[in-house]
């Protein structure tokens, strides 16, 4: 298959014209309006390929900043509807167990408590962007301590919280696994048995890594680890559900991906998607942590049961225990270099702690594996990456999707190699970085590569040489 993009004659001419200095202003597809601000030097007035765009260096104010500063922005928790109830979710507090029974009678009898919901009430009790392995509310099994096991809608938040205390859940404790390396072992507790704990793998091969390592002047081996990180948006997850008389549900939610969320909500409620209206509002911080549904189906069903709007706002505790986090990585690097610090071969093994559910782990795994060798020209590669279930808070999307973790590893090792060989850390990178025409670990030929220029400019700006390496 020919992978070259199809460019017709006219388009090609346009692209050529755009790439020619001095004529880009006439380009029919130009996005920069004249006149450009006076702060720009004349020679930069027309953006050319690989030059900074005029937007860089300009001061811009956000259109929504005025109302933010006035305290007039309406986040979910600032909204209220007549008759609105407040929901709270009871969390398991145990990492691995079978639910024997849930007694909600005492909670239901409390004055002010309007409805109680358990996992049995959810029409399709599973969701997830890759695998639907996460229950909306745990019904049969608990897979991590933050699993919801029941929910309450009451006239005040305080009453809802009090009612949670009256719900009695009987558990049969089950074995659990918390360490991702232990979870890899054959005899380990299988979190979602009969499924294997390893729920996604990615392998990248290029050249002959073993031969190249054997031929290397020096071989460096090191393990790097990163920890679990919570996004901690200052606004906790929040949503309001309104189930109307015609069986349609409107959800206001702090969710970032409303189209995906709408489909997930419809699936869990077993409703056609056109019965679900999902309204995304201004979000008080997302960072990847608000990329999939959480309590929305619960609120919708509580609204259906009560005929009233129902609001749910996570507590800070729930943010840490019941929302996604960044994957902890265990990263083994073995790198062979020649006497001048040129990397000849690199072998990487990544083990991602996926927590109790898949969430965005597959995406994270793929990106981490591709980026794990760094922005360096290496002919012989082997990357073996996997993500495993453990009985911990689930891990999912967070800024970079796995890129920051591997960057910590390969750049740490670059420094170690530089120190061992007595090469300046900047110099060893300049000797190895991608250039135009380099190919990525998965074979993509790279264009517009400016790593070298960026490094040199950065080093000059912050005085790398003067500071001394």
């Amino acid at each position, binding site marked *: 298959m020919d992978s070259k993009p199809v460019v017709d004659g006219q388009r090609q001419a346009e692209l050529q014209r755009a790439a020619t200095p001095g004529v880009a202003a006439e380009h029919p597809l130009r996005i920069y309006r004249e006149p450009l601000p006076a702060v720009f030097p004349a020679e930069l007035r027309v953006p050319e390929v690989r030059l900074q765009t005029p937007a860089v260096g300009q001061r811009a104010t956000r259109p929504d900043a005025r109302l933010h500063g006035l305290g007039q922005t309406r986040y979910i928790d600032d909204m209220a509807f007549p008759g609105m109830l407040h929901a709270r979710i009871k969390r398991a507090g145990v990492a691995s167990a079978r639910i024997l029974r849930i007694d909600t009678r005492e909670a239901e009898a409390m004055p002010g408590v309007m409805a109680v919901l358990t996992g049995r009430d959810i029409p399709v009790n599973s969701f997830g962007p890759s695998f639907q392995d996460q229950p909306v509310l745990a019904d049969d099994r608990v897979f991590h301590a933050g699993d919801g096991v029941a929910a309450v809608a009451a006239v005040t938040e*305080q009453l809802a919280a009090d009612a949670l205390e009256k719900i009695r859940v009987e558990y049969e404790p089950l074995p659990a696994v918390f360490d991702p390396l232990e979870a890899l072992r054959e005899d380990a507790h299988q979190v979602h048995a009969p499924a294997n704990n390893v729920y996604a793998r990615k392998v990248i091969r290029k050249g002959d890594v073993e031969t190249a390592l054997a031929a290397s002047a020096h071989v460096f081996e090191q393990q790097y680890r990163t920890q679990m990180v919570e996004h901690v948006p200052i606004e906790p997850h929040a949503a309001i559900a309104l189930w109307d008389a015609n069986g349609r549900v409107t959800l206001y939610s702090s969710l970032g991906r409303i189209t995906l969320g709408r489909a997930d909500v419809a699936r869990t409620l077993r409703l056609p998607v056109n019965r679900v209206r999902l309204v995304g509002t201004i979000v008080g*911080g997302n960072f990847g942590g608000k990329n999939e549904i959480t309590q929305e189906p619960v609120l919708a069903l509580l609204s259906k049961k009560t005929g009233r709007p129902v609001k749910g706002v996570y507590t800070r505790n729930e943010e840490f225990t019941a929302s996604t986090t960044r994957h902890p990585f265990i990263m083994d690097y073995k790198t062979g270099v020649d006497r001048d610090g040129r990397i000849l071969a690199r072998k990487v093994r990544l083990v991602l702690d996926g927590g109790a559910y898949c969430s965005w782990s597959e995406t994270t795994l793929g990106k981490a594996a591709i980026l794990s060798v760094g922005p360096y020209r290496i002919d012989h590669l082997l990357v073996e990456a996997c993500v495993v279930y453990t009985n911990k808070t689930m891990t999912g999307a967070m800024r970079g999707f796995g890129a920051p973790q591997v960057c910590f590893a390969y750049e740490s090792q670059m420094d170690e190699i530089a120190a061992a060989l007595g090469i300046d850390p900047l110099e060893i990178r300049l000797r190895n970085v991608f250039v135009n025409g380099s190919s990525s670990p998965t074979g993509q030929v790279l264009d517009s590569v400016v790593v070298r220029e960026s490094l040199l400019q950065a080093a000059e700006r912050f005085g790398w040489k003067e500071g001394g390496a």
Partner: protein
Amino acid sequence: MITIRFVVNGALQVLSVAPETTLLGALRNQLGLTGAKSGCEVGDCGACTVIVDGRSVNACLMLAVQADGCTVLTIEGLATREKLHPLQRAFEELAALQCGFCGPGAILSAKALLDVNPDPSRQEVRDGLAGNLCRCTGYTKMIDAVLHAAQELRAAPTSAATHGER
């Protein structure tokens, strides 16, 4: 229920509150002043910051009954849409507000600081904002904004006192 009387943004308010009602709850749920946010409910994040008798407080940790007889300023009392406080203008123009959730609290902490220390050092501004967590900005722009507003307030204290037409 307990009756409390306090001045909020210049107007006398008489409320009947449950003993466990926080000042934050009373402001948000009873007075509809939702500018102060609930971020952690344990006094860590500062999103609920308001000014009580001239001092910045975490409204989530103060009971409404403790505000009886006090004077309270919330973000809604600082300016109107057309008349910005120099702090609000500086926060807007120097990009100190991204998602904005922590903004009202940070602005009020800064105001409480500048009211007692009109010429703070950068370190003093950092200390003044230490109780306000922000996950978007990395704080540098907020600190710049507070220093900028302080300068403006010192240059024109009278116009700033009336918030100055933009």
